[in-house]
């Protein structure tokens, strides 16, 4: 069990305790305020260097990590893999060694291979490693920002604030994760976070898109998407990952949409309090109807906004926490 993120790598949300998750969410709450200021910057990581290594394409994760690091006054080394020596065949180990030689305090890593972040943390044990998505394995900051978004929405409705509510609003909350669970690192991080926070989690997907080890997950698999939608307080949609061949796991995209897509008809039947989430990028018209994405129940824009304070909190706890007693 990981009881705090202070001074730790963030490789996975599996085994992160409720207390540690709440600590991140509470710290992010302070950074929400920083992001509302005219001068959106605090000197907490002044003089520290954060390397951002994205071996896989990304828009929001990369931008929001780099924004987060800059708002903490860290210097950001950003490696554009497409124009780097990786294209000449440099290995991950050598690339990391090169960047480490420049002197870095943290590395934010996105990689197509599951376990890449863990591997890098072994190469450079003195550097804090933040996993920004590794293959099919985990995308911890997405899980954190999803939980943060849910807590924010629910605490606003309850007329309280996130810090006061702690983990109470998650107790027994009914979360439905639907879609391409098999290929989704977001699903793995979301499930770990929601389950640790006390939610009841169900997943709905075509049999072919369920992970083979789903019986070991802290979830219940449901077949009837429409029943599950009625049950859910939170609906977490997942992108159908066509670049990982998900298209060949379903008979046709149209059939996937008909059985497991959040169509406008299904969205109209949702309870008015149900929250709809999507980690992006969306396949509009596949797992989510374009019109649903723009309904007030959809928190997709808010998820992106919350990415910055959550990643500030993660970098702050991980990097500053590791310097305790350093001098």
């Amino acid at each position: 069990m990981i009881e705090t993120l202070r001074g730790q790598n963030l490789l996975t949300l599996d085994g992160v305790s409720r207390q540690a998750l709440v600590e991140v969410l509470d710290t992010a709450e302070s950074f929400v305020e920083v992001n509302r200021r005219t001068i959106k910057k605090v000197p907490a990581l002044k003089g520290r260097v954060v390397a951002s290594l994205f071996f896989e394409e990304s828009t929001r994760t990369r931008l929001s990590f780099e924004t987060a690091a800059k708002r903490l006054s860290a210097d950001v080394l950003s490696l554009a893999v497409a124009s780097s020596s990786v294209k000449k065949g440099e290995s991950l180990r050598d690339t990391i060694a090169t960047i480490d030689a420049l002197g870095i305090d943290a590395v934010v890593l996105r990689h197509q291979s599951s376990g890449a972040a863990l591997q890098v943390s072994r190469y450079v044990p003195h550097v804090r490693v933040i996993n920004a998505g590794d293959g099919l394995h985990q995308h911890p900051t997405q899980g954190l920002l999803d939980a943060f978004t849910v807590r924010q929405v629910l605490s606003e409705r309850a007329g309280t604030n996130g810090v006061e509510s702690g983990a109470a609003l998650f107790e027994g909350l009914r979360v439905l994760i639907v879609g391409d669970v098999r290929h989704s690192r977001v699903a793995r991080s979301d499930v770990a976070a929601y389950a640790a926070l006390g939610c009841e989690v169900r997943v709905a997907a075509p049999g072919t898109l369920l992970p083979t080890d789903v019986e070991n997950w802290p979830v219940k698999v449901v077949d009837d998407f429409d029943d599950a939608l009625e049950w859910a307080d939170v609906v977490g949609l997942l992108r159908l990952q066509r670049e990982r061949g998900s298209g060949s796991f379903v008979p046709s995209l149209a059939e996937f949409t008909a059985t497991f897509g959040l169509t406008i008809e299904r969205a109209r039947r949702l309870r008015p309090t149900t929250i709809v989430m999507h980690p992006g990028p969306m396949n509009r018209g596949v797992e989510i109807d374009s019109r649903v994405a723009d309904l007030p129940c959809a928190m997709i824009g808010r998820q992106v906004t919350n990415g910055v304070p959550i990643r500030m909190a993660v970098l702050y706890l991980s990097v500053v926490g590791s310097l305790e007693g350093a001098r």
Partner: protein
Amino acid sequence: MSSTSERQTPSRDLAFLAKSQLLTSEEVDRALTRMAHEIVEHNAHLDELRLIGLQTGGVAFAQRIASILSDIVGANVTSAFLDVSFYRDDLNRNPMPKSAATTIDRDLTDQSVVLVDDVLFTGRTIRAALNALSDWGRPRTVQLAVMVDRGHRELPIRADYVGKNLPTSREEAIRATLDGVWIGAREPK
């Protein structure tokens, strides 16, 4: 309450063990009333006055001074809070402070800011607060009100309004709340 003087001491994972009470809640309130009158005396334009309590120990004092000021001037004086955790120069030496809410919601340019804290010790919290304030513009003046000044400054910082000067040794600990002021020691929790 227990968090009031924790920021003053090197380790925040220690509990406060009270040895003796130095001020009662009535004495604290009398001191705050006097400080409020001094603030009125030194600030001609009270509409430009901004009371800012430092998280977490200064918050209750800022609120109390604001309420006394409201009674004195017959207008509503409010206070805001500032958390200086992200501005501290000892982030890499001490256990990380738990961050708390900052509620400054407007530009402070040309305002008269009065920072309020419970205990003035090394002055490093105030240094962090001064740095933080510059992110909200350029106040005309920044003044400092503290319930207790216990000495041992490490920076050229002094308070404009002091509830009580208490000579202490570095090893001692002070707890100052609206309920009173105690001197004591730090014990592992």
